[in-house]
């Protein structure tokens, strides 16, 4: 894993850790490379998903100086959408960062 890949993965984990801090004790999610964020198997409800997206866009901009959108037309036209799970999210962010 490259340094950039590792950094992006850390940011995703950071947003999920922040989310856990905002949720009650019985709502904590397991944070890992296979964590499913969207769709039938998702561990997140819509509020939590949006929280992750918003926080992650901010963190990526702060870390890399590049503003990315995870929900613009480009992102939403992907199939699957970028935020299905941690892996697809990481891949999409890396692609956007170039």
């Amino acid at each position, binding site marked *: 894993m490259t340094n950039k890949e590792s950094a992006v993965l850390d940011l995703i984990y950071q947003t999920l850790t922040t989310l856990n801090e905002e949720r*009650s004790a019985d709502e904590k999610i397991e944070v890992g490379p296979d964590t499913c964020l*969207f*769709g*039938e198997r998702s561990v*997140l409800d*819509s509020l939590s998903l949006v*929280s992750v997206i*918003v926080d992650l866009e901010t963190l990526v901009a702060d870390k890399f100086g590049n503003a990315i959108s995870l929900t613009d037309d480009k992102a*939403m036209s992907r199939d*699957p959408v970028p935020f299905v799970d941690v892996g697809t999210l990481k891949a999409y962010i890396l692609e956007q960062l170039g």
Partner: protein
Amino acid sequence: MTNLTLCGEFINLRPLTPEDAAMTLRWRQSARAANLNQGATSVEQQAAWIASRPASEYNFIICIKSGQPVGMVSLAGIDQTHRHGEPGRFLIGEEDAVRGVPVAVEAMKLVYELAFDQLKLLRVFGTIASGNTLMIKWQRFLGMREEGRLRRHYFINGHFQDAVLLGMLEEEYRHHALPRMNSLIAAGRKSGKADGNTLDGMRSQNDE
């Protein structure tokens, strides 16, 4: 209370009735509703509260297409002179039933369509307790803007919290919120099965 049903792709909004008192009280007393204002403490109180809703309010039960009630949402504070209204009382009570269905976003979309398209309002607004960070981020993401703060306005969860005042104008709804909601619904549709019953998992809550 107005007798209006709104139909969406994945959900319907039907009128809240006193017969919903026990169910909605259970939702209100769940851990997920911890960030809401204190409500009724008995089924009788809840039924009385529902029965006392003025005719000017729209109070809905959110039902998935099977007919199962899964949550509630309202449009209150409608002022046709100043052409504004206050969406709120937003709570998904049956999280397991809505997992995979874009319930929250479509419920908001139907309420906004009622506000801006049918009632011709020019602005919607509401307050959220400052500790309800997930709901604040959610509403901002959907197009609400922070317009102010009422300091130490709520006593919720054992401490005083600011009320964050959020608002959205009609043009912001059309240019920002509506496309974003449509995108989320489309994403949910894409991730679901052909029967349309297994889309994005959504649950939310909002201050009254």
